[in-house]
């Protein structure tokens, strides 16, 4: 019972915070500037890790499918097709956002939580700034724009990773892999990828912001908030992934 009331309390506070966050800005130019800063931090700041992870995911997927299909009647070019679709539908949005929940989510929780503890948020409140809006809205907007772009890059890099894993090693020819990648393409899968990326981006930024915004106590609590931001974001991304899979397929 206590767990349920606790969950409902968090949900209520989260909804109220988001209601306050999406209010009319005091000064659009300040919010625009902050959104640009966040887009740079989230987008450019995460590019290298996203590319690295996508490259290896594509490579591993290709090698493991090559191993699975070895000796079967399934044409070898299917490896390219499987890498492309598993990447676009599932691996690029989900794995990228799980990684970003760790990198970006913990950063958001620590940044906002640190501001709460150092009384920066109180200082802004007293000035008349809507702190939920100024500190959260630009992050959400930036993430919802930039993370789908990162996911698209991850999908492309992952397919390239698959190519690099199987073609130079002689598992299959370049033509076969490209033929696989170009076979049975359904643009709806790309739509699904972007829907997932947007939903996951929203979840990971708002959950992390919530954890930071309501942090109390000292550095131990801030550490816990940062950890909770990652753990809860990851869980909610996986739950949303399941629901979207049910809804969109």
């Amino acid at each position, binding site marked *: 019972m206590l767990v349920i009331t606790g969950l409902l309390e968090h949900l209520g506070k989260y909804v109220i915070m988001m209601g306050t966050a999406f209010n009319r800005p005091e*000064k659009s*130019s*300040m919010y625009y500037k902050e959104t640009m800063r966040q887009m740079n931090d989230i987008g450019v700041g995460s590019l290298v890790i996203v590319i690295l992870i996508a490259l290896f995911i594509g490579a591993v997927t290709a090698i493991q499918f090559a191993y699975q299909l070895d000796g079967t009647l399934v044409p070898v070019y299917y490896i390219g097709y499987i890498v492309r679709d598993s990447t676009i539908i599932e691996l690029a949005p989900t794995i990228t956002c799980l990684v970003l929940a760790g990198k970006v989510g913990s950063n958001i929780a620590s940044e906002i939580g640190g501001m709460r503890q*150092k*009384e920066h948020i109180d*200082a802004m*409140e*007293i*000035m008349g700034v809507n702190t939920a809006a100024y500190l959260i809205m630009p992050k959400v907007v930036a993430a919802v724009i930039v993370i789908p772009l990162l996911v698209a890059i991850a999908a492309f890099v992952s397919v390239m990773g698959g190519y690099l894993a199987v073609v130079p090693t002689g598992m299959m020819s370049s033509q076969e892999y490209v033929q696989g990648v170009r076979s049975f393409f359904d643009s709806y899968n790309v739509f699904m990828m972007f829907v997932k990326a947007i939903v996951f981006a929203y979840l990971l930024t708002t959950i992390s912001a919530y954890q930071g915004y309501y942090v109390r106590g000292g550095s131990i609590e801030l550490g816990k908030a940062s950890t909770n931001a990652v753990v809860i974001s990851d869980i909610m991304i996986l739950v949303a992934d399941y629901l979207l899979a049910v809804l969109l397929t």
Partner: protein
Amino acid sequence: MIRTENVTKIFGDNVVLSNISAEFHRGKTNLIIGRSGAGKTVLLKLLVGLLTPSSGEIYYDDVRFSSLNKKSLRSLRMKVGMLFQASALFDSLSVEENIRFPLDMFTNMTKKEKTDRVNFCLERVSLGAINDKYPSEISGGMQKRVGIARAIVLNPEYLFCDEPNSGLDPKTSIVIDELIRDITYDHNITTIINTHDMNSVMEVGDNIILLYKGEIAWQGNKDEVVYSENEILQDFIFASPFLQRLRTAAIDEGKHL
């Protein structure tokens, strides 16, 4: 003027403030003093609206604080400046950007007008060209002054200072006290200072409220402190044997401290 009427604040079962009725006058430095845990910070947070009273009312020049809608509250907030105990300067912004932040957020001033205003405020707090320095690159005393500069940049009518002398040496403390007092007098601001610094009490205490266990134990001004017979006040202000001897000597000689 800011006025409180029977303000009570309760956290769970803990009554932190009980029936606080007080007036904080315009153009004067109003001090809230008391031992740690007496409820000073809670009262200050109630006055600035960071906390809501469990019961009672707070009035800003006869406007009931709790009756303000969002728009009125925002316009009132623009008349409020606050200096925080740890200065609360934004670490990632330079000194100039910190002071300019309220101007950027709430005014349509040109860049030059903002820079001029920032420089004026920096001069007002006797700081030179440190515009490009970051908070971590300046001393605690300078951080307090930058905090004051940021607090006054929008020409506030109400200035709140939470422990402005904490962590400062006695000389710097006096400089900060005098600065707050001068700004209060020059700009006719209602200033409320939350402190337990003895020097502040004796130097800038135009109107002093002593909190003890969540209630007002004494109210007066700096000239009345020495001669008051209030035991709680004397126990708090003249806590050390040295200060007690000083007080006795002053009374014997009929002098003001």
